[in-house]
């Protein structure tokens, strides 16, 4: 299996007033074509920075990539120049967290869709009258149908603020699909939505990925959402990958203490959730060794000194911990 996206040893820092903030530290990951990968982490885990790094949308003066590489479809995205540039918005597209802010409020939805179609999508098949504009509009309407937006023609004439939250996110999805990408990066796409709408959008994402063979890298802090749509889940903590597990192993066979504690933090009727005490590690002065050790109940001397190397088992389950749970033991809270 050749990977569509391959990230090796990515280190990223932001220059801040208080010194450099290490946002990503030695991140390795791959995404196969058509695969849905969830990037799970709490605020400050670096998941959004990782997504932005792939898209080349990091704030330019502050961000500094110390080492590592990002290869997408065989192209080096960090040093690829023009070739990488042309991949963005064509081979890899983006669904943002807050659709209202991501639209330009002064332009009609149709205009913004049309511009993506015009500049990023592969040339549409010539319409009946050989009119490119007409062909583009047809393609847009078809796409809006595909994301289950009824009365799509009327929608094109609206302004972003006139749509509901769910409609806006569907349009964003349509915009991400128009270039016929091989990969979509979705950054917390359902965080701002109500649960009933969230479930619709998640369902839609999954169906689209399956039907069109698009890979999705889905960042979220919501374990439930990750469970719903992902094939594989990557748990990040403080800029490092803690654990990579296949969906089936996520609940029952997680091995990293952090993953287990996260799962135990979920509120659930009839059960008292246990939180994780302490503060998340600061990227300005990350703790030495395993970054999770100050909050980890199993931490020992070695955790304070050495960064745990990831160990991989045969089913693709990877864990970076000096004291992982045994593969077979059941989760803490059951």
């Amino acid at each position, binding site marked *: 299996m050749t990977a569509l996206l391959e990230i090796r040893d990515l280190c990223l820092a932001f220059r801040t007033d208080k010194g450099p903030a290490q946002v990503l530290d030695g991140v390795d990951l791959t995404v196969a074509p058509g695969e849905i990968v969830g990037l799970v982490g709490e605020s400050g885990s670096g998941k959004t920075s990782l997504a932005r790094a792939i898209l080349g949308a990091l704030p330019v003066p502050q961000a500094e990539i110390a080492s590592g590489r990002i290869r997408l479809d065989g192209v080096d995205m960090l040093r690829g120049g023009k070739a990488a540039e042309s991949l963005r918005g064509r081979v890899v597209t983006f669904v943002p967290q807050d659709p209202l802010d991501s639209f330009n409020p002064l332009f009609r939805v149709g205009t913004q869709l049309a511009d993506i179609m015009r500049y990023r999508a592969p040339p549409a098949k010539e319409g009946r009258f050989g009119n490119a504009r007409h062909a583009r509009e047809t393609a847009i309407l078809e796409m809006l149908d595909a994301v289950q937006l009824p009365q799509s023609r009327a929608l094109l004439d609206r302004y972003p603020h006139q749509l509901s939250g769910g409609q806006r996110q569907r349009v964003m999805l349509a915009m991400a699909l128009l270039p016929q990408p091989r990969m979509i990066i979705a950054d917390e796409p359902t965080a701002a939505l109500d649960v009933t709408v969230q479930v619709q959008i998640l369902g839609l994402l999954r169906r689209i990925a399956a039907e069109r063979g698009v890979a999705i890298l889905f960042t979220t802090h919501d374990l439930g*959402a990750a469970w*719903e*749509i992902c094939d594989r889940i990557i748990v990040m903590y403080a800029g490092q990958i803690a654990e990579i597990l296949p969906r089936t192993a996520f609940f029952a066979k997680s091995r990293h203490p952090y993953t287990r504690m996260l799962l135990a933090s979920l*509120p659930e009727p009839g059960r008292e*959730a*246990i939180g994780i005490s302490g503060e998340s590690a600061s990227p300005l002065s990350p703790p030495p060794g395993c970054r999770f050790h100050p909050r980890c109940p199993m931490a020992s001397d070695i955790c304070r000194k050495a960064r745990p190397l990831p160990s991989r088992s045969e089913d693709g389950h990877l864990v970076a911990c000096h004291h992982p749970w045994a593969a077979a033991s059941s989760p803490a809270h059951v």
Partner: protein
Amino acid sequence: MSEPSSPPLLELERLSCHFPIRGLLGRRAGTLRAVDDVSLSLREGEALGIVGESGSGKSTLGKTLGGIHDPTDGVIRLAGEPIATQRSRRPLSVRARLQYVYQDSGASLDQRWTLRRSLHEPLVIHTDWSREHREAKVREIAGAVGLAEEHLDLYPHELSGGQQRRAGLARILVLGPQIVVFDEPTSGLDFSVQATVLALIRGIRRMFNLTYLMISHDLNVVGSMCDRLAVMYLGRIVEIGPTREVLGRPRHPYTRSLVDSLPRIGGPRVTDRLGMPGEPVFPADMHQGCGYRTRCPIGTLACTRIDPRLVIKEAHGVACLEWRP
């Protein structure tokens, strides 16, 4: 089920909170029925959860209880005594007994004040205690919510999000309230922090024998924190009952769709089944019939004409024409 002998600690009777929608020349063009004809009661020591999606009016309900909005109609009773409706007239003693905690309780702190000063303020307003007396109380409560001594001299922006919420909570607790309204106490928090905040609320409930009302969009949160649940849709309560009942055997189609939308980690994907179609309409646009009919999978013609009332049977109420026990 028999009625308890003592009057409920908190009672809402046909409470409404409407906002005018201003149109041409500031004329009233319509009415936003944020809270519409809501009745419910809370016994001492009870925890009631209120769930609903954005625009369901749950937050307005909380703010009306907290005395931040004036009710348009209806009565709020605290231990049998009606609370004056206008916020300017709500007496200090009532304000101390019934308190409202903001979604981000840290935001109730003045950014230019140290924590100590913010925690003293309620006591300065409500009591004539000496400085030492107040300080002792402030320290006691700060300790109870897990804030260290040295935190008291910090400004809000020097605290983490979780600590700010603790401080906001402490500000409420120094007055020793009987009832607290928690408005989305966990929104915007990571799961690990959320769980510690919920644990804290559970702790202070035991410690101070609190009665509370918790408002949240997250069924899991209220489900794990409350004895009873009320489900709101477009300003109305559509279902109310014991948590186990409401979540385990939902009667209203809306509650059912909410419960069905919850991802179950370890279980089958809920997206494999069809979710609920549509999104809530604007609360001002409804004129007749059941507010949920536009999204309801089991709606009939009658639903467009008849506005179902909340019918309570065996402590479990539901407002739906189609529901037959």
